[in-house]
């Protein structure tokens, strides 16, 4: 399945959360893509995939933002995002958004066909496996809903982590349950979200893992934020940071020396 010519051009869809909150994930993604022989380009007119508007019912703004994304990423062989959620928005929802708009439908479908979530792209398209990466941690992986259900990313992250030296992966119960992030949901329905993230945290803590990872920064900010609020200090990193051997810096919400 994997095609591996060097110098394949990949446009990085940074995602708004990585851009603002955790640039290290973006640099980890660049490093990983380059390790598999990709030439990474970062189109500078990108902002966000449009989900905040889409999930709030503002279809008009969503379409305008989506049209901008389609333009910004035109012509690249691949578009890769370090997020199942944003990749899912582009691959599953953009074509739906423009289904009655013949001018943009083909472009939306074309972009959808070229867009990938980072971890599955590394594994399935680039045949990547981490080499010489060492991490002496007991780690649990959270399946984000969009990675799991929209992008079918399940085995790829687990498989890639199995090549990291000294890393022990432990699975939490109720893996398929949502962490309660849901974008604006976690702000609008904070009490319901709190109950959901607490259930998630109980399952995570029960694994006795000392590190948590996932492929979506939204979930990680939610879970890490709640862990710290409750006085737990588990280290939380995006999976790109782990695979790229960039696990040394502070995790999400962790003190900075």
């Amino acid at each position, binding site marked *: 399945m994997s095609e591996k010519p060097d110098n394949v051009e990949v446009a990085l869809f940074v995602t708004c959360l*990585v851009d603002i909150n955790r640039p290290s994930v973006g640099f980890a993604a660049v490093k990983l893509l380059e390790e598999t022989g990709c030439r990474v380009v970062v189109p*500078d007119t990108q*902002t966000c995939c449009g989900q905040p508007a889409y999930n709030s019912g503002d279809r008009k703004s969503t379409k*305008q933002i989506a049209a901008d994304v389609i333009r910004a990423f035109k012509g690249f062989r691949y578009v890769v995002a370090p997020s199942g959620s944003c990749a899912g928005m582009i691959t599953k929802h953009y074509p739906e958004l423009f289904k009655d708009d013949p001018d943009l439908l083909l472009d939306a479908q074309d972009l959808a066909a070229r867009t990938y979530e980072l971890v599955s792209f590394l594994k399935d398209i680039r045949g990547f496996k981490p080499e010489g990466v060492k991490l002496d941690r007991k780690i649990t992986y959270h399946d984000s809903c969009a990675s799991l*259900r929209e992008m079918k990313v399940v085995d790829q992250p687990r498989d890639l982590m199995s090549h990291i030296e000294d890393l022990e992966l432990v699975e939490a119960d109720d893996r398929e349950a949502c962490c309660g992030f849901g974008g604006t*949901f976690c702000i*609008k329905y904070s009490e319901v979200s709190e109950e959901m993230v607490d*259930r998630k945290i109980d399952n995570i803590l029960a694994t006795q893992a000392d590190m948590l990872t996932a492929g979506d920064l939204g979930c990680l900010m939610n879970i890490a934020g709640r862990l710290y609020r409750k006085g737990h200090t588990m280290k939380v990193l995006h999976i790109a940071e782990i695979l790229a051997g960039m696990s040394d810096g502070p995790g999400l*919400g*962790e003190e900075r020396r």
Partner: protein
Amino acid sequence: MQVTSRKFKENSSKAIKDDDLRAALNRVKTGFTTARANAASELPEFEDLRNKSRDIKDGVLENLDYYLEYFEEKVLAQGGHVHWCSNATEAKAAILKICRDVDAKTVTKGKSMITEEIALNRFLAAEGIEPIETDLGEYIIQLADEPPSHIIGPAVHKTKEQVTELFHEHHQKYGYTEREEDAEKLVGEARAVLRHKYVTADVGITGANFLVAETGSTVIVTNEGNGDLTQSLPKTHIVVASLEKVIPTLEDVSTVMRVLARSATGQEMSVYTTFSTGPKRSADIDGPESFHVVLLDGGRTEMLGTELEELLRCIRCGACMNHCPVYHAVGGHSYGWVYPGPIGAALNPQMVGLEEARHLPNASTFCGRCEEVCPVHIPIPKILRHWREKAFEQQIGPKPERWGIELWGFFAKRPTLYRLVTGIAAKVLTKIAGSRGRIKSLPLLGGWTSVRDLPAPQGATFMEQWKKSGRGAKK
């Protein structure tokens, strides 16, 4: 029932703090989901059957008028009656007339969501006719004077201790003066009380899982056998069903039945599957002397040909709520109307109005698990989003939320300005957090920080750093 969907936040806040409810919902979460997963994995053709079931239901919806008339013709041919009702008022009037014609004092009832939808019990009681629920769960909530909290397990929110108290309060008049704490004995007590009611009831009312067009039969599936006694002992049997329950053939019934119980409880089949075809014939030993089908539209034909049509495929298995993390957290009553969980969140705005039910389609993370397990592939998240778009169009909901999204959208459409603003925001937040790495409280993000710390940004944005590194993009 009184609609309280408007108070979803208050309802759910109360529910989340209720430890009994939490224990009950945990049983739903682990019990039903495991059972469904096992049942699905044990049947190799399960996915195929889901697709077939969806196609059967779609075929019905495309030709609903044809199948309904076909069904009516067959019911009439067996000597039964069909009452077409466009709304709850008409349905209740039709049921009352049938009851009055036989001078009914009491009616026994099998489990029926449609009679919940039209609030039949309250209506009959006000007309001096005593309704008696015979499904154990429905019986329990009838005693408690509560609406169902789950479409297949109406009393799933009740603990055994609460049932002990309810029975103690209501069964003393039948001579049960001791508090019964053993679950099996509680069931026995209910059975003994109900046994007498079956025999003396004048009318039996049941719902229907299917209305079979080719035979004019109605079908119910139950696990308690109460439906059989309800419909075969009284002299009059009334079936109350909404019109999308019609299905072309017996063959189709057997297809959909194979996904129904598996999706609902994880059983291969429910314990009882009962077909009712007209009143008793002269050679029959028992059965009702008259047979009525009350067919309710209740806003459903308005959904045909719209974004909501796929909701009419629903076979009321409850899998969506069994798998819903929001339902697991808040329980069924928080939704504030008859249908809880994802299906309720998608359906209720149509039934009780978007203004009243606006919270329901919003209180979802779009995690997608409901659609993943729905036996007839109803795209529930897509329908929830449709309601959010309607609400946005009609300016329903708090203005600040709307302004927030519009403001964000304004920047997201202007990359240069966006870059500037996000750059400042990231630096300010980094500064506020200092070496802590997180922020405890932030006025504009109170919904976030009321529950969690905000992991702080790392300083400059990715785009700034990228540009600085000299690798600034082309295109």
